[in-house]
């Protein structure tokens, strides 16, 4: 990590990168914890997700991001947002990155706190 800042990684917090390098829609991966953690910029807010799908344990952070396909009338498609959904590459389970809840049912992905300090994105509690 860049050394011109006073913020440093500690055993339970990790400097992920510079805010300027993670614009909305982008993400990065931090190889910490048992599975690693993906850090996503969702509309200007950061979300950190354990790379483990609660459905069958797939590598969730390998999955792509999609807009929300809303419940709709038959034969209509209502698409909203841009990249709020993270879809597991194994079985296609969808999770809303904003709250971590699956689009179907009540499965929840493991999320971690992220703070921004001194222009840096810092992952906590892993």
């Amino acid at each position, binding site marked *: 990590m860049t050394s011109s800042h006073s913020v440093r990684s500690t055993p339970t917090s990790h400097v992920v990168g510079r805010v300027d390098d993670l614009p909305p829609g982008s993400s990065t991966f931090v190889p910490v914890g048992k599975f690693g953690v993906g850090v996503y910029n969702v509309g200007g807010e950061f979300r950190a997700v354990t790379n483990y799908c609660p459905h069958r344990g797939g590598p969730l952070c390998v999955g792509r991001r999609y807009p929300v*396909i809303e*419940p*709709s*009338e*038959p034969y*209509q498609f209502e698409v909203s947002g841009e990249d709020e959904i993270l879809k597991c590459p194994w079985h*296609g389970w*969808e999770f809303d990155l904003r709250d971590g809840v699956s*689009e*179907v049912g009540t499965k929840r992905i493991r999320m971690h706190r992220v703070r921004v300090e001194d222009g840096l994105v810092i992952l906590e509690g892993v």
Partner: protein
Amino acid sequence: MGTDTQGVVDAAVHPRMLTSQQIYDYLRQPYSGLVYNSPNRFFHPTPTGIPPFGEWLEQSRPDGEVVTTSAGTYTAREPGSVPARTHEYLRANGVSQAVLNPTLRGLVPAADQGSAICSAYNEWQAATWLQDESDGLRFLGTIRVNPMDPEGAVAEIERWADHPRMVQVGVPLESHHPYGQRYYLAIWKAAVAHGLPVAVKAEGGVGVEYFPTMTGMPRTHIEFSALHRDRFFFHLASFIAEGTFDRFPDLRIVFADGGFDMLTPAMWRMDMDWPITRTEVPWVKQVPSDYLRQHVRFVTNRLEGPPDSEPETVVEWARRTDAAHLLVYGSGYPVWSSARPDQILPALDDEDRDRILWGNAHELYASRLAATR
């Protein structure tokens, strides 16, 4: 509460015309001048094997009865065609109301002729069996429509919707597309508009429908009998996936020829696939199996499910499959495999059996039954 006071509702009785020629009383030109190859168009030899009518219960076979209709007098030839014999069977079963659903033997190539045949069967029901008012036993009718002709089907529903004894719309199991597809929407819309459930019934014939199995024509009766009802599930999956139930919250589908035993495992699969494929069908807003109680019933059949010799398995399976809410008793008379009420899940408790033998049918046909009293 009990069948003694309420009377069993038989949701599947298949009345048959007195002879193979009687249909011409109810067809008009040009269709009265066209050959219609009915009503014994069935090629898988049934196990009872009593020629020429082994497909039917022997007790339903006419014995020289002469029946007079408004269109003419006939010596009855076809099994299941004599109302008095049907009365006898139904009375012995404690039946107070029986839903008639004639067997049309599958699709014919000419859609207009197919619709004319449906009309003829409806006129015949109204002119004969539905006129039959005998002590404590009432016949109710099915508005048969041709799914190959949705426009004609809607017209046929409109024609009979106000008839006090017509309680449902009837279509064959053997259609050319799964029933959820948009081709049929107008038919279901008309049925819902008149509060009529839709019965899907196996015709057991070989018209111009597709093979009864996905791999082709089975050679033997055991294959046909065991497997042809799988097609119910193709229709059900289509109704769910195409959003037909979301589009028509009041649509009720009655699968009127067994097939219930494979429903639950098939729904497990669909439930499993739904979270993964939701974005393909975002209009499906519930877990697929959650649509069943609101929209789907199956008529009983004694040739399926765990054997009665294992009552604990029967009870457990009935509980897991929601049989007490999804099953509606129907004898299937005069088919050789007709089932009496005492042959339907004898291991269940009285409350569940009451639901199956009349309670669920009363819910299903409630508005229509009230209107006929």
